[in-house]
């Protein structure tokens, strides 16, 4: 029978099927962090159940960590306690932990791919909804709750009903200044935040085939913002080249064997999807959100919808924005470049390329937060840190930071923030904060202008 990429990976991980019930799905890699793991460790301890496969678990500290002075003790007592518990739990069970300050520390969805922990054809879970990121490698990767974290601890497996399959195809050439973030914000704005529910998405077509791994990760990362459990892109030469040589990637003959297998992970021509959508790349332009969910987005050059809709009105009331208004020219005092969506080297290259030779606007507070220690190292090696410094920016240390504002990186109430993160929910970046999601290019341009500028048109140079 013809199979999709998703079928091929799923079916090779089914341990057993319960008649008229869920399947036991084997999990290859389990990533954990400080916020959603302590209750799972406690659950196993209370029930006297051992951790089944500690060597298949990798831990990092990211959600609740400071992005300055990481060498000093964490000031907040509750945060410090949570980090200590992660350390103790990992020590007690022999789990690899990249704690604060470790050379591999970083946001879980930045760290695992760049170390080669994430590989095509795997199943991978984490107690974090943006685990969908790893689907960029042709893996089945999805976020789970803490009860499921405990289940994977106990059995390296989960009980799941096989999700439905959706394919989103985007063919054609992207316009200049349209980045992967714009592609996914565009798709979500067209389909809505509930459109992917109960589905796994495969992103197909030229646009994704021509994307770098960083770009594919940005796209798959936000599949959850459509309600989908995960997104996937078929592995290809771009994927194999990225994985090759990474610390935990297969080596030598083993790598070649794996690549031969990975090459089979493509949707068969006659395979069927439950739901299909197709978009034309030429319709996609730089995007920005105006509301309080990621589906409330528009092209930078468009105006906020003028619809009679109580949910829109509730959102605009929170955002203090008017129906029918344009966001171009909107004054903004905060810019955040970071998060598991856009904190990889490519994102900082885009930002550095734009700010080079320019100066940060005086009203702007810009937080540039690399996704991992390895990204920091790469930024330094490429000299991007100097470009940022000369333009008036300061780089912070890795972590989730202002994406969810669990640490001190909070946007003050009432302030607008152009953010490269993934969620513009009420209060997401701090109580009363107003988030405008956009690409790293739009964020960088905002930081220079002190207001939102239209990056779809090249800025005219004075002759």
């Amino acid at each position, binding site marked *: 029978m013809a199979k999709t990429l998703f079928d091929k990976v799923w079916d090779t991980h089914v341990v057993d099927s319960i008649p008229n019930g869920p399947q*036991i799905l084997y999990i290859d890699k389990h990533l954990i962090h400080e916020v959603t793991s302590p*209750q799972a460790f406690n659950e196993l301890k209370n029930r006297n159940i051992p951790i089944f496969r500690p060597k298949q678990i990798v831990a990092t500290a990211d959600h609740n960590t400071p992005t300055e002075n990481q060498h000093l003790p964490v000031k907040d007592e509750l945060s410090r306690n949570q980090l200590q518990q992660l350390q103790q739990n990992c020590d007690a069970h022999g789990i690899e932990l990249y704690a604060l300050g470790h050379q591999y520390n970083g946001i879980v969805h930045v760290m695992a791919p760049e170390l080669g922990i994430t590989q095509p054809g795997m199943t991978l879970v984490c107690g974090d909804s943006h685990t969908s990121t790893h689907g960029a490698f042709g893996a089945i990767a999805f976020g*789970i709750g803490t*009860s499921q974290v405990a*289940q994977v601890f106990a*059995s390296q497996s989960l009980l799941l009903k096989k999700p439905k399959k959706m394919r989103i195809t985007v063919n054609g050439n992207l316009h200049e200044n349209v980045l992967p973030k714009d592609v996914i914000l565009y798709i979500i704005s067209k389909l809505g935040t509930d459109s992917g529910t109960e589905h796994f998405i495969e992103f197909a077509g030229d646009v994704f085939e021509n994307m770098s791994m960083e770009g594919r990760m940005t796209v798959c990362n936000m599949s959850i913002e459509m309600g989908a459990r995960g997104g996937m892109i078929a592995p290809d030469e771009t994927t194999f080249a990225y994985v090759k040589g990474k610390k935990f990637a297969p080596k030598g003959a083993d790598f070649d064997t794996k690549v031969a297998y990975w090459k089979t992970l493509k949707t068969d021509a006659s395979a069927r999807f439950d739901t299909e959508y197709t978009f034309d790349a030429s319709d996609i332009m730089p995007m920005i959100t105006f509301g309080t969910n990621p589906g409330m987005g528009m092209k930078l050059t468009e105006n906020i919808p003028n619809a009679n809709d109580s949910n829109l009105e509730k959102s605009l009331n929170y955002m203090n924005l008017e129906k029918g208004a344009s966001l171009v020219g909107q004054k903004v005092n905060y810019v955040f470049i970071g998060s598991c969506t856009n904190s990889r080297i490519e994102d900082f290259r885009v930002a550095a390329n734009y700010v080079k030779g320019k100066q940060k606007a005086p009203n702007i507070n810009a937080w540039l937060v690399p996704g991992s220690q390895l990204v920091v190292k790469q930024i330094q090696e490429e000299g991007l840190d100097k470009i940022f410094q000369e333009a008036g920016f300061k780089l912070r240390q890795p972590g989730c930071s202002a994406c969810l*504002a*669990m640490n001190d990186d909070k946007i003050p109430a009432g302030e607008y923030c152009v953010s490269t993160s993934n969620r513009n929910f009420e209060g997401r970046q701090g109580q009363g904060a107003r988030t405008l999601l956009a690409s790293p290019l739009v964020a960088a341009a905002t930081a220079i202008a002190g207001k939102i500028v239209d990056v779809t048109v090249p800025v005219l140079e004075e002759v």
Partner: protein
Amino acid sequence: MSSFNTFTSTAYPLPVENIDTDQIIPARFLKATNRAGFGENLFRDWRFQKDGSPNPDFVLNQEKYSGSILVAGHNFGCGSSREHAAWALKDFRFNVIVSSFFADIFKGNALNNHVLPIQVTPSFLETLLQTIQNDPSTQLEVNLEAQTLAIGNDFKTSFEIDPYKKMCLLKGYDDIDFLVNNLNKIEAFEQQHIY
């Protein structure tokens, strides 16, 4: 975990769509390392004003409403996978959430905590919300065995639930029990698995 019984209760109406888990429990309250006490901060930023006093306009602060059922708008529980959202709802005393649509991860988290998500049609939801708002003493009857939600005899709907999950709720089982009993199969699988 205790088993889920058929029961009757009044309900709170919350007719807002796309309620994300950041609203149910904001991230700044996720620093705890146990499951208890999250109910205190359930819907924190909607429930309390900036000075910390209760927001009189928010449904959980209105004395006319009571009960252990929350009736909410389309796409309830979207966003973050934080199970703290299910813990907060349960800790507050909700053991049934009714909506016309649930986000996947939340639905799974709720069931794993024996909080029952009941999905109804948009028109049933509309009528239900109006009925509760017109008369906050309206009693809703939830029958898991029969998979029905009813107000009296004339207003009744059936709902879907995975048969395995239904059995877990009725008998008080959870997935860990099941998986740990299948470790031999999992070990056998590992022997032939590529990774």
